[in-house]
Structures are given as C-alpha cells and as structure tokens.
C-alpha cells in the first residue's frame, strides 16, 4: 500500500472539495429571521388583485372553479349596484373561498381567469393549527386597497 497515493491524496482531494464549498457563499439562511427571495414565477398562496382605482378585478365568473382540477374553489356571485360597487361591470364575487388544504397549486385558476384577478404569489408560509383556518376567504385573499398618494404623503 502506498501511503501517499492511497491515503493522503484521496483525503486531501476530498478536503479540497470541502474547503471549496466552505469558502463559497452560504445557501442556508436562519429562518425565520432571514428569508430567501422567491423566484418570480413561484406558485404559492393565491392573491386576488385590484385595478389601480381600487376596484376588484374578480368578476365572480367561476371559471377558476371550473378549471380547478381538485374543485377547491367556491365562488358565489352577486350583482353590482351603483351604490355598492365592487368591480367594474355587472357581476362581482360575493363569496370567494379556496380550500388551501385541497389546492395543489397548479395555477390553472390563474390561466383560466379572464381578468387576471387571481394570481399565485410567493407567500409560502401557510402552516396553521386548524383545518377551518385553511379555508381562505375573499377577505384574506384580496389585495389590500392601494393607499392613495395624498394619504401616503400625509403619513410621511
């Protein structure tokens, strides 16, 4: 047995790899203090978007529910009135619920949506304690109202 060839060389070769990785920038982050940036097309929890004027994009058409392969979306539509307007046009979603336990995050709903209202975004922290809390209601999914410029100015 040749000490140099059979023992020292392989060990130093292996340690070289170790050292190389040791010197590289680290991938591990100390979650939850640190969070990694998500890829642009990550598909996690759904968000219901609004138009710039604050009206909801969702028109309650139920096409997402129709496209959903696991039938985890429930949409109940109602009619907009001039006094109570949620979305442009005649129809809006009165109830919009997604069962996140059942959802497989395939993004078909996003594809089906004719107004681009429902999108899957990077919010991946979905753990919870009860089954009921996994029913995401419209209030939970909807994007918060945009803060108007003058209000934002005033806050500053």
């Amino acid at each position, binding site marked *: 047995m040749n000490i140099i060839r059979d023992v020292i060389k392989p060990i130093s070769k292996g340690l070289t790899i170790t050292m190389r990785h040791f010197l590289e920038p680290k991938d591990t982050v100390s979650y939850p203090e640190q969070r990694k940036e998500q890829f642009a097309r990550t598909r996690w929890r759904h968000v219901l978007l609004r138009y710039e004027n604050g009206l909801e994009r969702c*028109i*309650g*058409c*139920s096409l997402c*529910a*129709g496209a959903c392969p696991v039938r985890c979306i429930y949409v109940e*539509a109602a009619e907009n009135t001039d006094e109570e307007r949620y979305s442009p046009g*005649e*129809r809006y979603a009165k109830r919009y619920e997604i069962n996140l336990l059942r959802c497989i995050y395939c993004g078909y709903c996003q594809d089906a949506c*004719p107004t681009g209202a429902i999108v899957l975004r990077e919010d991946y922290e979905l753990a919870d304690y009860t089954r009921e809390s996994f029913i995401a209601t419209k209030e939970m999914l909807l994007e918060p109202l945009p803060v108007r410029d003058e209000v934002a100015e005033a806050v500053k």
Partner: protein
Amino acid sequence: MPKPKHAEPKLVNIEINGVPLQVPEGELLVEAAKRVQADIPIFCYHKYMAPVGMCRMCLVEVGYKQPDGSVRKMPKPQASCTLPCTEGLVAWTETEQIIKDRRAVLEFLLINHPLDCPICDRGGECPLQNNTQFYGPSTSRYIEIKRHLPKAFPLSKYVALDLERCIQCGRCVRFTEEVSGDAQLAFLFRGAQTQPHTFQLTEFTSRFSGNVIEICPVGALTSRAYRFRARPWDITTQKTVCTMCSNGCTLYADSRSGKVVRFNARENPEVNETWTCDRGKFEQTYMHAPDRILQPMARRGKEWEPLSWGDAYELILQRWGALSQQAGGRAVAGLAGHRLSNESLYMLQKLLRGAFQTNHIDHRFTRYQGALIEPPVQNEYRDLEAASLVFVFGSDLADEQPMVFLRTRKANRRYGVACIVAYPLENAVEEFAAHSLRYRAGSEDALLKGLLYTLLDMLPAEQAQANLPDAAWLRARLADCTPAWTQDQTGVPTETLLAVARQIADAPSMLILAGEKACDHPRAEEVIELLHTLNRLTGNQAREEGGLNLMPTGANQQGALELGVAPHLLPGYAPVGDAAARERFEQAWRVPIPREAGLSTDGILQACLQGEVQMLYVAGADPVREHYEPSLAERALRACEFVIVQDVRMTETARYADLLLPTCPFTEYEGTFTSWERRVQRFWQAHPPQGEAKADWQVFAELWLRMQRQAPPFNAGEVMREIAALVPAFEPCRYDALGEYGARLG
C-alpha cells in the same frame, strides 16, 4: 284536419353524407340529419316551432337524384331547417363550402355580440358559444367598437333582457305568437337597431314567459331568479317531475350545494314537449322555504318539543293502543295531500287499512266527493290533437292546466281542432275558441241542461237512443230547459247556445275538459252527472279520441285515486265492498281489511267534530287551505283529540297538530307521480334531505313495521314492485321498465 292518432307515416328515401335512410315524408332535413348523427348547427330553428330560416346557420348542400341515377346539385347551399324531405333528396353537411359558410355566418353574428361570456348566465351552455367553438373562426378580425345597448333590462318579473347579446333569431317572438298565444313580444325597429321587445315597451306578462329564457340561443333573455346564482359547471342536474299541477311536466332540477337553483324543462314529446309554465319554473320554491319542519315535534301545551323519530312512532303507537281498546279503527282517519308520490300514497292507505283497521281515508277537498268506480279521465295529451272538438267546461284552462292549454292551442293552430269554452270570466282559451259561453257563475247545471235539451232536439232520434238508452227519460226530465229558459238562467244568448249545440252535434268526436267550476260546484254531483250524460249522448264515451275528463288539480291527485286513497276504493279502483278484491289485498298484506266503505273528507271532518274520529293522520295535506270550507276543517282539527301532521313545511294545518313529522319534498327523494292523463312518471333525488326529514313512504313503512312486524320495503322501487304485483294497471311502472317518458295506466 285533426291529427289521426294511429297513422302510419309515408316513408321516402333520402341520403345524408352518403348514408341512405328512410324518413317520414315532409320531415325537415335538420331533423332527419339527427338520425345519422350528422350535426347541423342551428340558432333560429326549434323542434316544436314552425321553421323560419332566419339565422342561416343550418346551411347544407343539397341535390336531388335524377331518373338516370345522377345527382343534380342545387347551385347554392340551402337552409336545412326549412327543407322538407322528399324522395331522392341528397344532402351533404360537411363540405368545404359549408364549413366556410358557417364560419362566415358566425363571424357576422359575433360582430354585434359582446364577448362578456364570463359574466353571462348563459356562458357554458350557450349555443352561440358552442357553435363558435365547433364551427366558428378561432380569431376575430373585428377591431371596431361594438354597439352598446341597455344591459339586464327587467322585461318581466322573471325575465331580464340584455339587448347587446341578442342575435335576432326570433325564437322568443315566435314562441309568444305560436305557442303561448299572448303574442307579447315583437321585433321593434329595423336593421342594426332591430330588437325583440314588448309593444310600447310595456311589461312582458305571460304565464309562460320562462320558456323564452330556455329557448334563447344566447344570453339575451335570462332568468332574474337565477341571475348570477351558479354557472353550469357548478350545478348537478337531476331529472324530476313538476308538482305545481296535475299536468306532469318533466323537468330538470339544477342544484348547487344542496339547494335547487332553477328548474329547466326536460323534453317529453308526449307531455310538455319542451315547455314549462312560470308557476312550475319559478314559483316552485317550497323545498327551501324558511318554515320547513326539520325534526319530529310533539305539542306540549303551547310549545313544540323536539322528539326523535323513534319516540314519535312510540307516541303514535301508544295512542293507537288506547284507541284500539275502546273504539278500534272507526276512531282513526287519514287525509292525504296531492304532492305525495304514488309509493307514499299506497303505503299510507295500506297502513290505515291494514294496521289501523279503517277505511276513513280520502284525498279530495272539493265539493265533489262522489263514489267513483272508474277513472274520471278518459284521454291523454295526444287525444287533444286527434279529437275534432275540445269542449272546455268550467275551467280557466291556462291557469288550472297550463300544459293542457298549450296543447289545446297547438291542436287548434296546427291541426284545426275546434274549441268551445264555457267559463264565467274572460279567459285565454277565448282567443282561439269557436264559441265562448260566458255564463253566470254558479249556473253550470242550467247551462248543461239547456245544452242537453237542444242536443236532444238536434241529434237524430235513433242515434240519441242508441247512445243513451234512457234518452226518453232524459227528454222528460229536461222538458222545461228550453233555450229561452237557459238564457234566463245563465245569461247565454239563445243563438250562441244553438250554435254550440249544432257544432257539438256535427263533431265526429268531442273531448270534454271539465275544470274546477264543475268539481267545486255546490251541486257538483248533478253537474258531473250531466257531463257524463252529455258524453254518452254524443257517443264519446266509447270513442278513443273523445271523452270526458274531470281534470285533477294536484300533482298526484290522480295517483291518489288510482292507489285507493279513497274511502270506497282499494288500489286499482277495486271496491272495498267486493269480497274477492279485498281478499286479494288481505292475502298480500297478511292482515284483514275492514269491509265497509269509510267516510269521505267531509264525513271525516264531521266525525272529528262529533268526537267519533279521535286520531287524524294528515299526510302532506293542508285542509285548512285546500278544503272548500276552511272553517269546517279548522273546527274539525281543533275538535280532534290527536292530530298527526306530516308535511314539508309549517302549513296552516300544522298549527293544529299534536305531532309533527318532517317529510321530504319531491326533490329530496325518489318516486313516481301520476299525471292527469294517468301517466306514471319517475322523479329522482336531486339533493340530500334537510334536517331529519324522511320520505313519506318511508315513514309509513316504518310505522307498518312497528305495528305489523313484517319486513318493510327498503326503497321506493320495492314499493312499486309490490303495487305492480297487486294492481295489473301498474305492471309497466316497475322502475326497471318505466322509461324516460313514463307509462300510461290501463
């Protein structure tokens, strides 16, 4: 010419897409193509309306076989919806030319049609959407601004009109003109401004307005009740039968999350074709009424105490135990409603006759509660078209029997069947009737007497004698009922009466539809006897296409008669007094049946007042509302010691109950109904029962089990099997044999 009932159509040889076939002569090409599964897209064509060829969607290439065997092609494509099949016709539905033409037609239609499919109630079940998918261009070349018109204009209480979406096919306009007869819709304006609307833009008032929603091939006419309630992929569809009247229209119940969101017509060429009335389509909401009874409850003073089903049965058995010691079956009576299934009605009378040992059972709340011995109806829908004269007597037909009205109107319009109406008020039949007898309300008997008197004069003596052996006696009885006397009594002018009698005397066959004014007349027995006399005297008793029909009003009122929910009849019109018939049932049920006929509804209510009936079982009925004398029903219910009310919701009668049992409405269980023409049709469970409600037949079966210790039926099909084994008329109604369109009894 009335449509002969058993005519063999003449067949012609045609060829579609190279497939030779035989079709009845005159059948439209668009219909014939369905026989070889050649799909021809359509918009304006409707199977039950006259073709107009407005939309040009159904274009096909057509040629005719020449004597030398060659095919001579027409130079241009033809509309297949207006082309009747004749000998030697050859058609091609999928040529390159046709594919191009269809694409062009659709492109034109889509120029003015908004693409708001995601919010349109028709989206997902829209013929325009489907045809565009299958035959249309995949992209649009139209970049200009689309026209804008009012959205969701409330046309009537039930119908909303979206003018932007209309493609001017004219189906709705033609429907109101051809089928419903109110001719309320018309095309206003011309060219690109053409729009269907009511004249003067008034409200669309029709008994059949809901149909235009279903026949509209786009989302221009939509239901206001169903507006934004669900999309086609959200709902589950189940076949069912309407319960709002006795016409037996077949429906689809569409439910979402255990709630029926709408009813749509289900095609049945023998019954409702594809129509519904607004009452059946929109007003049938009682299954989701807020006052549904959801669990058994017993009265404790002024309060209701919830019970389990077991305790409820125990309570009934205790009461019966005490009663059977003293008075026996005489102290028990049952009243059945008109919305119970055939199976439930059979089980109810079996329970009362077998377990409670009583024949006090009835379902009739009109003044006519006579001892019938045979079916009070003779005809079916098809006979309306085959008879040469339809005599509507004492019925506001469009209101009482909407589908019979539509068929009568169709018979008159399409086959020239004459129609005579006798009703005290203005009514829809007058629009097409040859004569209208507006008599003074209450003088039905006088009118019939006068008519019979005149007919006896007009008909040849030997014919009258042959049809009616006691014609001489009748002549003597009606000696004073001259036309002048009749005019004095009824207000019907002498000339009209004579003209009507002349028409009846000359008609080869006559079909009488007797309505509520006959059956609810203070002297109903006499009026109905006179109607029978009229039927016999004109010889229609024996004719297939003629006859007398005492029209039932409730959904399964006819079934109640067929299945022995009558004091004097066992199922199948077998008299209770007949020992042989009784023995047959006794053997099957393994229990003796009381031999005397029981009391009818009025008798039962009187007996309650006198304390003779101490336990009253009211199943699905509401005597306080339905009985002709509500105060009598109310006093009787108050007087009766123990009232069991088994119903879907908290009716007026339920307030007098001592024990309330919750049952399912027709959408929550399966069974069969018998319509006025004695047609038994199946309905299926559309959604699960609410609360602890059970099907009526199941409640009776469970009581039967507790009282008789016999194996109960496990499903409605088994009950029907038992009925079919006992009543030969029900033989074709076993569930495995009963087809899509039901079967007629007898």
